[in-house]
């Protein structure tokens, strides 16, 4: 049995868990976790997840099942991941469209894939392989990147669409990543959104990012959501309809009330853009 995920959610993170789990704010409709932080781990993380599941539906977002890597998957990891995910009764799991490791070594960061036919072919095959192994629906997430990977910035949208079609996959659409890439590679984020087949979008991410002195934007999830990203979310939700939206905040975590103000802002945009009045 999966639990219904709708409206605005928040990433469950160690730094904000104590206050979040104590106060159980009603405006937070669901939570997202990174399975790598919980698999085979006891202590506070186990407790956080158990308490979270008492009050909220949970969705999972993977960090290390690299869709872009050339090496075969670790079958025992995928088996364990599948067991962990099925126990959580999640409606879908998501992973990044990126390269996370080489030769059984992990970067612990999301490195970019070139926007080529070869990458699209490999990533889509791997997506299917993971989806089959874990036994739950799998969405891919568009990533942020900092070094050019194609003829222009919008080529990324074509690349993402190609992988989605080849694998017949769902999409976790990260509007902050699109905005960051748009500013770093000089394209209109709305033109990117316009290329996405909206019927594939099952979830949306929003976050803030860091602007370096030289203007390069880094996807830190460590700043408040900027107005431009809120606006891009509004534009996106008007096309997708009421797709669940997650606020990602991983670093530089502020007091919970600051995050809840952002959640309220997201609800306002969500309701305005989708016409939903009673959720949350």
């Amino acid at each position, binding site marked *: 049995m999966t639990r219904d995920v709708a409206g605005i959610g928040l990433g469950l993170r160690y730094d904000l868990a104590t206050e979040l789990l104590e106060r159980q704010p009603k405006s937070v409709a669901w939570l997202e976790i990174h399975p790598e932080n919980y*698999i085979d781990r006891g*202590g506070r993380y186990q407790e956080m997840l158990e308490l979270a599941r008492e009050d909220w539906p949970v969705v999972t977002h993977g960090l290390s099942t690299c869709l872009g890597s050339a090496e075969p998957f670790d079958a025992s990891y995928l088996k364990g991941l599948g067991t962990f995910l099925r126990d959580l009764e999640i409606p879908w799991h998501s992973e990044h469209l990126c390269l996370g490791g080489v*030769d059984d070594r*992990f970067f*612990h960061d999301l*490195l970019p894939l070139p926007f*080529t036919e070869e990458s699209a072919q490999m990533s889509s095959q791997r997506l299917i392989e993971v989806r089959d192994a874990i036994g739950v629906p799998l969405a891919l997430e568009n990533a942020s990147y900092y070094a050019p990977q194609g003829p222009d910035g919008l080529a990324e949208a074509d690349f993402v669409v190609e992988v989605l079609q080849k694998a017949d996959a769902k999409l976790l659409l990260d509007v902050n990543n699109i905005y960051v890439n748009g500013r770093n590679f000089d394209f209109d984020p709305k033109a990117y959104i316009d290329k996405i087949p909206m019927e594939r979008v099952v979830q949306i991410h929003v976050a803030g990012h860091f602007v370096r002195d030289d203007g*390069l934007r880094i996807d830190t999830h460590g700043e408040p959501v900027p107005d431009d990203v809120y606006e891009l979310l509004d534009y996106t939700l008007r096309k997708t309809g009421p797709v669940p939206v997650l606020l990602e905040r991983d670093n530089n975590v502020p007091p919970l009330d600051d995050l809840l103000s952002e959640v309220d802002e997201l609800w306002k945009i969500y309701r305005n853009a989708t016409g939903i009045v009673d959720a949350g």
Partner: protein
Amino acid sequence: MLADRAKAMQRVCFGAEPSEADLELLGSRERWLVYRDLVRNRLNTVIGVALARTKSAIGEDAFGRAVDEWFDTGSPKTRYLRYVPSELSEFAIPIWQLTETPWVADLAGYEISAWEVRHGPRNPESVGEFAFDKKPVLAAAVKVLRLAYPVHERPTPKKGYEPKPTILCLYRDGNHKAVPQILNPLAADLLEAWRTTDQTVAESVQTVAAAHNTDIGPTFIEKLSTLITHFIQEGILLGGHSPPS
């Protein structure tokens, strides 16, 4: 093509010095150096948190050199960020044993053990009652450490630690923190026997007491029962399993 790029990314991120040939293959030299910083900073952060006292004892430069050398020759095999400090320690502690003042390797071993206990696995879900005729079940995150220096004593003395053989049990308490407890040699051997052998409590007590030339008399039994009660109260000892008949 993709595989060549991936290997170049790995060398650029983890190599001692990124090569111009790799940077040219990947394109956008400056942006790939951004990736190098991002990757290394994240790993350095978690390593610095796990080994904070070791880092301050050795100094940032020497500590950073060991981490850089590990990046260059190894880099993370684990997908779990929480295990990254353990992999670094496996590489760096033997180096620090040779290059640093003698207690530093003990301190690093103590810190990484505490980190592993704090972030260690879940306890088994169904455990029976403790009994002397059952095989004991320990918590998943319990370690016994045999140290030459009492590096668990804080703060680190300005002149460093004087030698003092110390046996510690590290376990996760009710607040999920790693807590050290001093053990005598017999208690430490018992705890290790409970983790590694298939003997019942009664059998392991006999084996360990014999190895220590200790009679199992009333005083011994009283001390043993105090120890077992304490282990159960602290969540170090969870209960027992009946041995297969």
